[in-house]
């Protein structure tokens, strides 16, 4: 004879004898599911705490003066420190180059005598177009979206970038004809 645990309460008519135990287990699983869900929610919220909503950094989109202020063949470094962007005007138009080296993210220097961007960290070199030609950099400098605002000022949008190796320099926005 095996011993059977007594039910937690008397079964109602028409109900299986262990209904009390069954309802106990279903309440237990509900409790565990809610507990796990609340722990996951608390964990997610805590992780989210590490991602601030407001950054005290320069905005991604900024106005960069009038295109006439730029001289042909001269790298404009006014926005290098504040926005990490070089503006370059050539015969046909203007483009905005990222100052972030494509090797490991240092900031190259523009050497006007040698007509190249040279990174001080590991020696990567880029032509004025942004194409890499020496050192460990695996790809050209990125370009940012450039356009003209209604007031005639240049608008640089760092939220949209164009990579030469993906053929994106041909896309509209990578180059402003002027």
């Amino acid at each position, binding site marked *: 004879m095996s011993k059977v645990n007594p039910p937690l309460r008397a079964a109602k008519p028409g109900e299986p004898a262990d209904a009390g135990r069954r309802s106990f287990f279903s309440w237990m699983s509900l409790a565990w599911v809610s507990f796990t869900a609340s722990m996951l929610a608390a964990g997610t919220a805590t992780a989210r705490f*590490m*991602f*601030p909503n407001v*950054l*005290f*950094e320069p905005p991604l989109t900024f106005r960069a003066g009038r295109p006439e202020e730029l001289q042909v063949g001269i790298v404009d470094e006014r926005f290098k420190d504040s926005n*990490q962007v070089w503006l370059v005007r050539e015969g046909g138009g203007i483009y905005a180059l990222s100052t972030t080296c494509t090797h*490991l*993210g*240092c900031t190259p220097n523009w050497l006007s005598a040698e007509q190249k961007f040279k990174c001080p*960290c590991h020696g990567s070199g880029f032509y004025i177009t942004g194409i890499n030609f020496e050192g460990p950099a695996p790809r050209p400098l990125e370009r940012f979206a450039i356009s003209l605002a209604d007031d005639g000022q240049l608008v640089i949008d760092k939220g949209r970038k164009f990579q030469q190796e993906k053929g994106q320099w041909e896309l509209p926005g990578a180059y402003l004809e002027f």
Partner: protein
Amino acid sequence: MSQLKELLTSLSPTKLGEAIQKSQIYRSVFRVGVPVSDRKRMLVMLGNVFLHLHPVKVRKSGIRLRFTWCMGGITFFLFLVLTFTGLLLMFYYRPTIEYAYVDIIDLREQVPLGIMREIHRWGAHAMVISVWLHMVRVFMTGSYKPPREFNWGVGVILLVLTLLLSFTGYLLPWDQLAMWAITVGSNMARATPFAGYEGPGANLLTLGENIPLISSTSDARFALLGGTRVGEMALLRFYVLHCVGLPLVAGFLMAVHFWRIRRDGGISGPL
């Protein structure tokens, strides 16, 4: 006269010692008395909050310097030195862009015992070296084998924590070397699989055609730096991680590490 003699006799070192050993203060500190038997010695080890992490018995051959190199012990000693000197440095160093660099200069030029920061720095270099040598020793002597494989795992985490402590401390002087080293180092986090916005799997985390779920303002690197570049927030985050977060985790795991040495059959040698 005889009373004075009695008093002087009672002040003899032997009697004084006995009196001290019978006092409540002494007995509250040293509860099992002077351990004269092996059983008493074991009780001392087991009953002490610091010593109980250690093995009760150590094989003489197991602690030969040629065998252990004492690298684990040296690593722990360096950790204590770094905790102490780091605590002292915290009295002067302010983790803001305005003050960080000048406070470091100040620590060398104006604060007495100007080598405090150098002790901390060289100690940190030494700890990275000693922790590697400890790992080499454990590997060479086969001390990672069962039942010690769990402790090997704990040790690997401690190695990573040591390197992270070294990395976070690197930024704090806030000079050019610090700035660009952390720029380069944190750029690696961009390539974290499924958590860095340029990492493998990032292009799978998109909504529809080309709305990315993670960007440069929501990936692993951003969480590390508190921004999109190494700036004010990065300095603060690295400071908090360096001084509080990582040492806490490392201290906890070190307790586990030492405890497991005891549980797994002593420092080293065959079981």
